[in-house]
């Protein structure tokens, strides 16, 4: 590895692309087979493979550097071989994330999954770390190739998911890994007559294995698995994409009948429906569009209420779901209907199976609701948000998902899109004690207050059925006639009045009696205008979500820990919103594992590195700070740009790719800049650039977001990339700068630097979410720049010496 031509740069880029594609594939896979927060957990801990690779490298460094070519190619081949085995085994370990706080064996299974999934990353990261070490002062080039490849891997995976069924993705990734191995044979100019036939055989084997083996093996506790277990049930259509995996299930023998909150007085029943699953859960029902008489039950649902209060000319339905809200709008009104749905596959399947096809009244728009509302000139009489597919409360399992649809800023945008007497309608599954509905009400009140409404109580109506509650609000008060219609509707359908202006306590909680009239009491207090004082004393976190803290489903508060402990073994986790605790447990587990597998060996091994303890601590701190801060900034931008780019998947693809490619560019420029500026100046220049750009974002970020959102669609992505560039380029410099110093002064520390940086990234991925939930993304950015500053302060004494 002394001659420049021998750097396996293309191979490194492909390998890195495969590793990142694997990571994103696993996120998607675990969201389907388990739950979203399990995806976070498994992936962040599986990435420990990166951290452990440093430790492994430190121990095999000498023989590996001596026989670099052999080790490098074998490690890539190892990645290709263990990946399919790990994907298959991790899926069949029968691990259920929902049982984590509930069953002791679940932890053992989880540990098994972590170890399995860490293996492929261990191989990939060891190969990259070895190449970095071998490149010595030219490590910046290898690191640049690593980042560029990772950027392309993120983009490639999203494109693969868009065009291929998910079960075909592993074989594509393995092919990419084997290409990396094959190219490295040529780049390193090594023995071809053995390596190439072996690689070819592996490639053939990859495609000869039945791809059905990679079909997601869904946990038996997920609703799709349960629906399919019922006699007569079968899948009629499946579509997977980067946004979600959609499945339609038909059961002529035991037909689905789904009507959230249907009146207790209903005599007619819903006709046979199809179950529509998203990621094997979030079930909605597809009802065939039929004659009005056969859909009589649509009048008997709580969601029929807005059509009794108003005769709308224009209705917006946010999210197509299974089409029930659309059917209601068609049959209970004569309005023009705009359906806004971010997933094009859902629109196509819905049209195919429900018969709801676009016509003069009905229009489908493939867009995000906020994005559409921002761009449209139409004013709406009703903007409708259905209850979604959660059913019976969120159980704390969606706590980690960001939701930009239900923030104060979003509600302000919806209010601006209403006609003067228009209403926003939000239905939500009932939880006891109530959480989501109270957060909707608090958010609505805050939005109304921010545009100058004082007597907000008169702008709200809330009703409640056995299973759901419905909120209506707008910029004008409800008239006495409207309130009377509201009361009459509730009485005739067996629903409770939970709020109208002037309502007395004794009028609440009469038909579907709760242990306590929570909704009425809470809304009364909220409508008095002291939201902060009210939410501060409520057991659950019902603070309105904001664009800076977009965690609508996060209801956890620390006093709940006592209740969670008392619920252990009783299956009551859903009552106390334990999802957040699972995230914290992940963070703690990641830190302990990192400590045991990376820091402890480093302490034991420190004498062989040949540097004094003070420098060792500075160096370790430097690479840890860099790992932490890089991901904190990257994740914050992915989240912040979600509003601009329309949905989280596009944001991951564009933002992640942008960051990695530009950071790669920064790394590629490092050696040249180092020559002209000197290493010390370059470190501080890059650090100050990062601080400056992040500070600018903190100051004008909101204005920037609002400005870009309304730009023509075609130029949004280039503009986003231009915004990322001045931040990402300096972010790519400090790491290779440190490696350069190590190559000359402490080469034995290189593997440790790689491992510590990887470990910090793992922790950072979880830490970013924990911090954002607690304090918002602005604070996360602030912490990240502080970490860059600390890193520069830790490294500068050593660099100054080096410059001298």
């Amino acid at each position, binding site marked *: 590895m002394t001659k420049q031509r021998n750097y396996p740069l293309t191979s490194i880029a492909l390998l890195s692309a495969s590793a990142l594609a694997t990571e994103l594939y696993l996120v998607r896979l675990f969201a389907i087979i388990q739950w979203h927060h399990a995806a976070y957990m498994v992936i962040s801990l599986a990435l420990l493979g990166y951290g452990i690779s440093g430790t492994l490298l430190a121990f095999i460094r000498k023989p590996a550097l001596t026989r670099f070519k052999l080790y490098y190619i074998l490690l890539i081949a190892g990645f290709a071989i263990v990946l399919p085995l790990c994907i298959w085994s991790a899926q069949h370990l029968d691990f259920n994330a929902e049982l984590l706080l509930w069953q002791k064996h679940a932890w053992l299974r989880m540990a098994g999954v972590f170890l399995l999934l860490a293996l492929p990353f261990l191989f990939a990261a060891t190969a990259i770390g070895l190449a970095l070490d071998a490149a010595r002062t030219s490590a910046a080039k290898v690191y640049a190739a690593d980042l560029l490849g990772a950027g392309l891997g993120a983009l490639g995976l999203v494109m693969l998911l868009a065009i291929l069924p998910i079960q075909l993705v592993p074989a594509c990734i393995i092919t990419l890994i084997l290409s990396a191995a094959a190219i490295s044979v040529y780049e390193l100019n090594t023995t071809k007559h053995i390596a190439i036939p072996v690689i070819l055989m592996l490639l053939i084997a990859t495609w000869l294995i039945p791809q059905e083996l990679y079909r997601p093996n869904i946990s038996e506790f997920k609703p799709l698995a349960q629906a399919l277990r019922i006699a007569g049930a079968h899948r009629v259509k499946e579509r997977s994409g980067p946004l979600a995996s959609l499945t339609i299930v038909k059961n002529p023998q035991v037909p689905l009948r789904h009507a959230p909150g249907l009146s207790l007085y209903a005599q007619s029943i819903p006709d046979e429906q199809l179950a529509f699953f998203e990621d094997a859960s979030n079930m909605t029902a597809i009802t065939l569009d039929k004659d009005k008489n056969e859909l009589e039950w649509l009048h008997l649902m709580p969601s029929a209420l807005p059509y009794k209060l108003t005769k709308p000319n224009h209705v917006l339905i946010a999210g197509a779901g299974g089409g029930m809200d659309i059917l209601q709008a068609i049959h209970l009104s004569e309005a023009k209907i705009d359906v806004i749905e971010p997933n094009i596959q859902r629109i196509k399947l819905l049209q195919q199976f429900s018969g709801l096809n676009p016509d003069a009244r009905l229009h489908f728009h493939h867009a995000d609701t906020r994005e559409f509302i921002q761009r449209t000139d139409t004013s709406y009489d009703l903007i409708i948000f259905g209850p979604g597919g959660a059913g*019976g409360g969120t159980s704390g399992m969606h706590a980690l998902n960001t939701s930009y649809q239900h923030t104060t800023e979003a509600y302000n945008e919806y209010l601006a899109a209403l006609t003067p007497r228009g209403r926003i309608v939000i239905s939500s599954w009932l939880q006891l004690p109530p959480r989501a509905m109270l957060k909707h009400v608090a958010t609505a009140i805050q939005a109304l207050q921010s545009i100058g409404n004082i007597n907000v109580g008169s702008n709200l109506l809330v009703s409640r059925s056995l299973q759901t509650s419905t909120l209506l609000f707008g910029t004008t008060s409800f008239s006495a006639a409207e309130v009377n219609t509201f009361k009459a509707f509730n009485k005739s359908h067996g629903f409770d009045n939970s709020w109208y202006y002037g309502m007395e306590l004794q009028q609440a909680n009469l038909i579907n009696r709760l242990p306590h009239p929570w909704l009425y009491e809470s809304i009364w207090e909220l409508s008095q205008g002291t939201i902060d004082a009210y939410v501060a004393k409520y057991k659950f976190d019902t603070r309105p979500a904001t664009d800076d803290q977009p965690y609508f489903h996060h209801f956890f508060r620390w006093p709940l820990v006592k209740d969670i402990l008392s619920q252990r073994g009783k299956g009551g986790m859903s009552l106390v919103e334990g999802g957040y605790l699972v995230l914290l447990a992940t963070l703690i587990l990641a830190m302990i594992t990192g400590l045991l597998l990376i820091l402890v060996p480093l302490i034991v091994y420190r004498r062989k590195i040949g540097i004094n303890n003070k420098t060792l601590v500075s160096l370790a701190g430097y690479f840890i700070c860099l790992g932490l801060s890089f991901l904190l900034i990257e994740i914050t931008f992915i989240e912040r740009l979600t509003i601009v780019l329309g949905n989280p998947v596009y944001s991951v693809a564009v933002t992640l790719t942008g960051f990695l490619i530009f950071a790669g560019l920064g790394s590629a420029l490092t050696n040249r800049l180092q020559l002209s500026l000197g290493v010390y100046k370059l470190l501080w220049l890059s650090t100050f650039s990062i601080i400056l750009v992040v500070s600018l974002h903190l100051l004008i970020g909101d204005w920037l977001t609002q400005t870009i959102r309304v730009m023509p669609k075609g130029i949004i992505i280039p503009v986003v990339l231009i915004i990322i560039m001045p931040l990402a380029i300096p972010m790519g410099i400090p790491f290779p700068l440190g490696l350069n110093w190590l190559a000359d002064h402490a080469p034995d520390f290189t593997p440790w630097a790689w491992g510590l940086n990887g470990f910090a990234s793992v922790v950072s991925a979880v830490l970013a979410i924990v911090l954002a939930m607690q304090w918002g993304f602005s604070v996360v950015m602030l912490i990240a720049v502080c970490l860059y500053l600390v890193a520069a302060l830790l490294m500068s004494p050593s660099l100054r010496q080096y410059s001298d």
Partner: protein
Amino acid sequence: MLSLRKQVSRSVVYSAWILLASLAWPLYAEPYDRMKERKGMVKEIEADVRDTSLYIDREQLDSRVMQAMQDVPRHEFVPDSLDDDAYLNIPLPIGHGQTISQPYIVALMTDLIGLRPHHRVLEIGTGSGYQAAILGELASEVYTIEIVEPLAEQAKKRLAQLGYKNVHVRFADGYHGWPEEAPFDAIIVTAAASHIPPPLVQQLKPGGRLVIPVGSRFIVQQLTLLEKDARGNVSSRQMLPVRFVPLTGDH
């Protein structure tokens, strides 16, 4: 003085008795231990009832219900691998993505429908058959419907083996109830649904009670009791069966 031969033969007889007794002990001890475990489980249920009395509106459950909980061998309804956990007051997986409910929930649901010996009761969601067995101890006829065929078959076999002749198992869609045997004095639904199926409300006798969990089947959140008065009007009441989360002092 006994001869040596007699001493030896007596020792042999004693030894044989001791050996026989030790062999027979497990046969006797096993049911005794199980009974002891069941009593322990019943005590835990009583404690849970006291803890949640504010929500469920009662300090203790009907003594007949508690007797049934003590009499029905829950270990016969759980998979062999979970035999040791059979009398813990927790839900347990029974395969096919289903669970056998927490004993406290079973007792509470049974208590809520206020069964009398002459009552005819309908259960939707047989599962392992444990709840049906409890109902079988208290009512004259129990009609139970299961949607997963293997579970229905297993439960039918198990209940027949245990001698529950008044429990009738059917593999069908519980949404439509069991119209041939309607009306019922009480209905227990053990699976969560998006709404209470209208046919079930129709098959409930005036004065009858229907109990249904709201939330997912796996983690029951709260039970809902639906009552039909003599004139056929229905109303519902929701309560928290699992340990509740009280609000802060001001509420």
